């Protein structure tokens, strides 16, 4: 019978997956590091987060799995920037809460897709508020002018959804090799 609570094997897998996710998402960071355009960083990292989260949730479809990925990726970022830690933890917590309220877990494919797709876009409001507080500016000035930030936010959702879809594709390949049970 499948265990409902997270066991040692799950925690270790999620922790190593988080380490790999941090490294792979770090590849995109030099491209967007120096920009002030709101949402561009999230759009770049969404490309990797959705994919890894779907794989993580497929291997460990248990409550709390997403929160643990958020927590473990956040811990490494904590050594560099406290804001990034809270970004990841609050994003994961919010996505987990939404999935728990709608799907009551990660049993269905739709729940995994929604959780992985929502994670990065849900960090956007946290970034907006924390940047406004830290920079001592208003939320509207952090948001910026014109249509570009709105485009970036929509782009983050779309890239995240595409990345989650790609995650399912990889899961199917891993299933064929016998490495993953779906």
């Amino acid at each position, binding site marked *: 019978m499948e265990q409902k609570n*997270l*066991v*040692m*094997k799950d*925690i*270790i*897998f*999620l*922790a*190593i*997956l*988080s*380490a*790999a996710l*941090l*490294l*792979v998402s770090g*590849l995109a960071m030099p491209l967007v*590091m*120096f920009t*002030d355009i709101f949402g561009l960083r999230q759009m770049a990292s969404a490309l990797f987060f959705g*994919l890894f989260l779907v*794989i993580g949730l497929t*291997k460990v479809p248990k409550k709390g799995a997403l929160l*643990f990925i958020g*927590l*473990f*990726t956040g*811990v*490494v970022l*904590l*050594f*560099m*920037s*406290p*804001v990034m830690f809270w970004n990841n933890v609050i994003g994961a917590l919010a996505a987990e809460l939404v999935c728990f309220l709608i799907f009551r877990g990660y049993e269905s494919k739709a729940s995994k897709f929604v959780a992985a797709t929502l994670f990065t876009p849900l960090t956007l409001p946290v970034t907006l508020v924390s940047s406004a507080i*830290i*920079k*001592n500016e208003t939320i509207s000035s952090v948001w910026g002018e014109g249509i570009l930030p709105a485009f970036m936010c929509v782009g983050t959702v779309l890239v995240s959804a595409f990345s989650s879809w*790609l995650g399912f594709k*990889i899961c199917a*390949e*891993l299933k064929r*090799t016998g*490495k*993953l049970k779906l």
Partner: protein
Amino acid sequence: MMDRIRGKYAAFPLLALAEAYIIFFVGMLLATKPCFWGFLLAVLFVDILFGYWKTAVFVLAIFLPISGLAGLIALPGAGGVKALQLAGRFLCLAIAAIPTAVMEPVGLVRVMNRMGFPRYLTLGMLVTIRFVPYMAEEMMQIRTAMKSRGIRTGWYNPKFLYRALIIPVIIRIINISDLLTVSIETRGFVMKDVKATVYQVPSWSFKDTLYAVLLVLVVVVFSGMGVWHGTG
């Protein structure tokens, strides 16, 4: 690498974390004030005084060019003052992270275990932190293997990233996690928070008290100056 830039003094892990938080937040709040650069210099001085000079040189060697570049990129659109503030924010992030950059993750985990944090949390944290360099090495090995098979291995080549990097990496993660779990379980590690002895827990020293007092002094003085500049 980290061993080479680590000095004799290592702040108590929770103090190092608290320092990173407080210096970062106070620095960001002071970024628009004239006393901001004095604040950064004062924090840097305290760090160097306590033996973090090697770490400071290492961190600044990386972040000074990055900060300069960030400022230069922002210069045409934002103007001189805003560009300087942006460069300062990058530097503040780096200076705040000096004690945590060379902090032993295992020390933090031991302190957290002693404080009664759940074991699955501390174990996961330690594995993630320890596996970042290990996974980087794994990825380089996969990349070299693909290169030797004649595959174009540019980091921004999507086909390579998908087929020849991410899939092998995921397979390695699954294999490593299975092995590591067996290894940890055979060493008697259990998830339940039963009573266990934690060896070599870092303890709070007199030097930690001095370091904390000096940093609090710097924060109070410069925050006061910031408020003064704000109202004046």
